[in-house]
């Protein structure tokens, strides 16, 4: 039984301060982490070297490398190609997407490190959010949690479970098989996903649960605008389309059917994006229009134009990476105020097509040209990113949707894929340390010019790096000073001899609390010998007690201290409160399900 020392108290005070600051957010979480990084060595709780060892830790380097790899994949369009099939299977319903991706991530994460699986899916999830206009905060947290939960499905899914058999060896306990934990793990994954599917709207930020937040409202309205606008349709005019009739122009189709032609072919194969209103539509050409289904179908029928299943000829030009739709707001003191779109003539000058104007909850689609613009009017524009960028540069319009004008390099997709495969093979086949494998992949991408080193630097999210880097010394301090051990002993002694199920629950709770502050590996190493002894004393199965530790160290949802949570915090624009809200629900469910499953099955 270790004695409570001044250092231990100091460590507990520091943990208290950190948690307090996480909650009140007077400082941003990553700044809190840096604060810890600096304060702990000053208080001589860790050595200076240990204080910054977090920055070079396996986890942090892995995250840096995996973000670079992700950026490379995104920039070469690999992610887009990956997203396509996902959406085809999952459709566009939010819960179906959450379920589908979560299951996939959990599956992957059950065989590789959680952080790796989570990071791989980050760009894909960001794409999906952008494409389907689902707030990213609705997607990332369930997926991140699933990645963590997926680590409990097999014995190699997370570091604590990998360690478990080694830690049990001194006690001559029978080791666990690879799939011994699978039933519990699957139940945990299922219950985690179920939590979000059923309670997602209450526990996730930015949803209906916060109807009063203006941002959420805006989102919904934006979706509505997109619905009214319809989607792109590709059509082909018949060979005799122009015969024996007056020329049909882009403008005429818009006036007659409220259908906007955004791209069309001039024979033989010259593709025009953002055609001028007086552009003629020729015979036997392909074109892409934006419009509501009923309007497009009416046009196709009356004009005898064939409607295609999906984009074919313009698949490349109108792909996400080349062009898109943005919402541009007329800025105060903009030169456009009071002018009509006819006078501004965006189509001619910038080759972008205004699809609709959105003013105070009303969408205007007809006779846009005559509408005098006011401050605050949102114009939905379609065009290539390059053209939209030009318009943006002109400064009279504010773009609410960020421009996606990064240069894409689809021709490098093969290299990106190869280096990803190299990294994964190194991890799975050769069992080399994760950070080394991933950094090899990242370096390979940079050398093969999938992305430049500067782009790689820009892609790295420093918030994540410092958040993790700063929490690691806190964990070191907790262990080194014996604080963790003291707490464990104290707690376990305090409860005395109880029913096995209560004991398991308490062990689970303890492991959960530990894993929130110190690393999951540290918590496991610390707790397993303790609980095995306790279980033996209490005549409970010691293997179960050890397993509870191994599993519960993955129950790290309440604070953004788990690597996966730290990674997703920035992109998802989450606050600590969000994690507490959703995380506490999931954590409680986790404990209940885990205890129940263990009790029932073993």
């Amino acid at each position, binding site marked *: 039984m270790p004695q409570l020392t001044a250092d231990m108290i100091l460590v507990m005070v520091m943990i208290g301060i950190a948690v307090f600051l996480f909650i009140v957010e007077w400082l941003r979480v990553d700044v809190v982490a840096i604060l810890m990084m600096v304060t702990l060595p000053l208080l001589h709780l860790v050595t200076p070297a240990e204080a910054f060892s977090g920055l070079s830790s396996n986890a942090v380097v892995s995250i840096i490398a995996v973000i670079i790899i992700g950026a490379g994949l995104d920039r070469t369009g690999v992610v887009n190609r990956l997203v396509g099939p996902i959406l085809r299977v999952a459709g566009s319903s939010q819960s179906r997407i959450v379920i589908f991706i979560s299951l996939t991530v959990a599956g992957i994460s059950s065989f590789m490190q959680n952080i790796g699986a989570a990071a791989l899916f980050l760009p894909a999830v960001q794409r999906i959010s952008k494409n389907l206009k689902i707030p990213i905060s609705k997607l990332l947290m369930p997926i991140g949690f699933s990645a963590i939960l997926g680590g409990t499905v097999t014995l190699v899914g997370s570091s604590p479970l990998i360690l478990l058999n080694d830690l049990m060896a001194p006690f001559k306990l029978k080791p666990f098989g690879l799939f011994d934990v699978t039933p519990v793990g699957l139940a945990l994954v299922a219950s985690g996903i179920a939590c979000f599917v059923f309670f997602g709207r209450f526990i996730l930020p930015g949803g209906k649960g916060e109807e009063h937040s203006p941002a959420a409202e805006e989102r919904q309205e934006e979706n509505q605008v997109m619905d009214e606008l319809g989607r792109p349709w590709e059509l082909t005019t018949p060979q005799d389309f122009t015969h024996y009739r007056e020329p049909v122009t882009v403008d005429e189709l818009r006036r007659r059917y409220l259908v906007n032609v955004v791209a069309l072919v*001039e*024979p*033989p194969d*010259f593709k025009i994006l953002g055609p001028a209103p007086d552009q*003629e539509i*020729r015979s036997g050409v392909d074109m892409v229009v934006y419009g509501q289904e009923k309007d497009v179908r009416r046009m196709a029928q009356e004009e005898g134009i064939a409607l295609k299943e999906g984009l074919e000829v313009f698949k490349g030009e109108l792909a996400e990476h080349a062009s898109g739709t943005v919402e541009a707001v007329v800025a105060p003191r903009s030169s456009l105020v009071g002018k009509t779109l006819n006078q501004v003539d965006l189509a001619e000058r910038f080759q972008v097509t205004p699809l609709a104007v959105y003013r105070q909850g009303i969408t205007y689609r007809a006779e846009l040209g005559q509408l005098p613009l006011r401050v605050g009017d949102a114009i939905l524009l379609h065009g290539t990113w390059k053209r939209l960028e030009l318009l943006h540069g002109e400064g009279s319009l504010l773009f609410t949707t960020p421009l996606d004008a990064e240069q894409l390099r689809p021709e490098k997709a093969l290299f990106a894929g190869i280096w990803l495969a190299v990294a994964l093979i190194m991890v799975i086949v050769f069992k080399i340390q994760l950070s080394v494998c991933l950094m090899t992949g990242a370096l390979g991408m940079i050398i093969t010019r999938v992305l430049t080193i500067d782009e790689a630097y820009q892609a790295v999210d420093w918030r994540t790096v410092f958040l993790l880097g700063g929490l690691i010394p806190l964990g070191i301090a907790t262990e080194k000073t014996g604080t963790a051990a003291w707490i464990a002993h104290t707690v376990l002694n305090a409860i005395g001899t109880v029913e096995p199920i209560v004991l398991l629950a308490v062990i689970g709770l303890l492991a959960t609390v530990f894993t929130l502050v110190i690393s999951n590996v540290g918590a496991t190493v610390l707790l397993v010998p303790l609980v095995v002894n306790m279980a033996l004393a209490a005549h409970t199965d010691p293997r179960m007690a050890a397993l509870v530790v191994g599993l519960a160290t993955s129950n790290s949802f309440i604070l953004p201290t788990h690597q996966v949570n730290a990674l997703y915090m920035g992109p998802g624009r989450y606050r600590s409160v969000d994690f507490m809200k959703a995380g506490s629900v999931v954590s409680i469910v986790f404990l209940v399900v885990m205890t129940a499953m263990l009790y029932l099955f073993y």
Partner: protein
Amino acid sequence: MPVIIVSADDFQQGREIAHRVAGVLGYRFLGRDLLARVAQEKQVSQQDLARALDEPPGLLSRRSRRQRLLSEIEAACLEQLLEDNVVAYGLAAHLYVRGVSHVLKVRIINEPEQRANILAQTGNIPLERARKLAQRQTGGERRWSQDAYQLDQTDPSLYDMVLSLGTLEQDKAVEIICDMVGYRKFQPMTYSRKCLRDKALAAQVRLALMERFPDIRVEANDGTVVAYIQSLKKDQRKKQEQVRQMAGELPGVRHVEVHVIRDYFGQAAQSSR
């Protein structure tokens, strides 16, 4: 009313007949005077233009420059022919105006012996040498038209009518031509005018683009210009854009379609049909 194009083996004789036909019908005579105008407008030498029309290709002459000069003449001549009631002579129009129903094409020839006589007289040379000269000239004409337009201009099937001065008086020839013009089948109509307009437009476009795209081939159909250019795949879009822009600026052009040819030889074979 129709357009008449006269071609002759003897320049002076042909010119005289064409001139007289124009006089009888009250038509405009379009002859070598046009070259002076082209020379002035396009800043080229009139001699060079005439030489491009007359001289058989030499080993040393630069073909591309000759083709360019001929294109200048072709474009200018076609523009003139758009207005009816014209007799054209000496501008090689019989080689580039084909398939236009209201254009009456007449070839005036002499018997070989007669031609030798004329040459002997005008050149003041012995008859024997004149005979050889006549033969050489015919060969030269053939070679010239083959080289410039891939056609043999001595081939009678190019013409609606071949009049031999060996059997006809000049007066009679003039009379026959004037009679022919009255036939209904030589009257202009919407289709034939369109054909001629298309040719004129194609010639204008080709001329405008020739410098930048020497091997360009141009067709026109009712304001729609179809250009065939050669390009490597990587410059394709740039070149297409360039042609579209350059051609699109010309008057009378409504649409530009740019086809890119990769198979150079196959297409060359096709273009000479």
